[in-house]
């Protein structure tokens, strides 16, 4: 079976498939929303509590909505669209390890998510706190990057497992992370958002303020890495047993 040599063609194909779709424009606009909010806040004044405002924006908008939704669309489009329209058959009828296919999809979706969300967090952070709180901006940036990588890995795998990955992903983000995790603190250990926030707070150090979490920085990193690795393993395993049928 072929190995790493197929990664280039697979990445290239995935990039063209992803970037060629109209929904990538919507994802781009969604990702840039925090920058828009930051511009409004800066122009509108009220800069007395900028660092606290930044933390609130990050906690309640970026990590709750923007990062998971951007990752959801990218992750489910990367391979889910090919499964939906049947083009995945052209990949599955090749002597290519299924892990490479899943890896390429996660790599492209994850990189696009990092580029979009990372840029957005960095620009919005600098606009709001300028260079007054560099630790906070760096923490938010790394936290968002860690979260978007884990989310996209999970959503790529979800779309290999189910044709309703978008709904399942939304249910996870809105119900599990949005509602259940806020009521039952124990479930936070099963929340990618919490891993990202733990990383952000850990790196921000004393500048973390209200972002501070019970989960230590290293634990946030390790749990996000575990979720990403398990998602990859499950995705590759599922694709290796994937069945395709036409009617008739």
């Amino acid at each position, binding site marked *: 079976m072929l190995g790493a040599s197929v990664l280039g*063609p697979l990445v290239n194909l995935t990039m063209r*498939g992803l970037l060629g779709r109209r929904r990538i424009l919507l994802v781009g606009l969604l990702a840039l929303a925090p920058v828009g909010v930051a511009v409004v806040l800066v122009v509108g004044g009220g800069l007395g509590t900028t660092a606290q405002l930044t933390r609130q924006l990050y906690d309640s908008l970026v990590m709750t909505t923007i990062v998971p939704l951007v990752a959801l669309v990218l992750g489910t489009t990367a391979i889910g669209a090919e499964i939906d329209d049947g083009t995945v*058959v*052209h990949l599955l009828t090749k*002597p290519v390890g*299924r892990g490479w296919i899943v890896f390429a999809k996660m790599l492209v979706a994850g990189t696009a998510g990092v580029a979009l969300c990372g840029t957005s967090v960095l620009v919005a952070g600098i606009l709001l706190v300028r260079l007054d709180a560099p630790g906070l901006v760096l923490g938010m940036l790394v936290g968002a990057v860690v979260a978007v990588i884990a989310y996209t890995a999970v959503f790529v795998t979800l779309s290999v497992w189910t044709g309703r990955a978008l709904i399942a992903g939304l249910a996870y983000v809105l119900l599990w992370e949005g509602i259940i995790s806020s009521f039952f603190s124990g479930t936070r250990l099963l929340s990618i958002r919490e891993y990202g926030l733990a990383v952000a707070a850990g790196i921000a150090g004393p500048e973390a303020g209200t972002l501070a979490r019970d989960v230590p920085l290293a634990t946030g990193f390790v749990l996000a890495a575990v979720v990403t690795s398990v998602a990859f393993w499950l995705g590759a395993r599922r694709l*290796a047993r994937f*069945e395709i049928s036409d009617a*008739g």
Partner: protein
Amino acid sequence: MSGTAPAPTVSVSAVAKWYGNVVAVNDVTFGLEPGVTGLLGPNGAGKSTLLHLVAGLLRPSAGSVTVDGRPTFGDPAVYRRVGLVPEREAIFPYLTAREFVRLSAQLQGLPFGSGAVDRALGTVELANAADRELATYSKGMRQRAKVAAALVHDPAVLVLDEPFNGMDPRQRLHMMALLRALADEGRVILFSSHILEEVERVAERVLVVVAGRLAASGDFREIRRLMTDRPHSFTLRTSDDRALAGRLVGRPTVSGLTFEDGRLDVRTADFATFTRELPVLARDAGVSIFELAPADESLESVFDYLVRR
């Protein structure tokens, strides 16, 4: 294909595929040898399911499918020997045909610049349109692009699901000639069709699938003879049904006769003799035949007959 490569062996043994309570394919056994084999059956008979089982895209619920002794499902390495042309038109619309075939070559591990891509595009007569996006292609052209992508690694086994769909008559003839040429090089070609004449023109062996079961298999001429020699029904409208019926009823070739609604229905067990005798009998009886129509010539009735045998 290299002349020294061993001939591929494709074996389907007691294979069944079911989805919940629905049985798509039931207890099917056959082997394939180099040459063209047509998989014939009405729509919904299980042809695609069977092809997908052979191509390793479906896991058999029972039985086994092997190529060169290796199970096809769950073993991507089998695609070094197998090429598949799926029926679904799904194709990456943003790629040109050349990029699509090149992608196939890259994923097969073919060395860059080996000429395989140009060769495959030339084989399906797409060289001149190869740099156009697939989104701009007609259905027939997309079909040929898929064939080129499936052929680029020179597979020993080529599986095609309804390959003539969407092709115009000239493209159809070209595809038939291509399949014959590929088979003459020692490949195993298996293709499905629900059109008898397509299979007749290109396949030397045939597998007839009806309702998920293998109804008949073997040499096409033998199957054709079975189809021709089965009991036939004809509907006649004549100047004097009763007079003609009087003549017909004494003939051993006629196995049944009915009058109904001003028409004469005749059943015969010997198609060839009956069609020779009928005009002679009508002339001798002074009866004019206004209409003679086969009552059961649909493919479904042919398939039903084969299943009941």
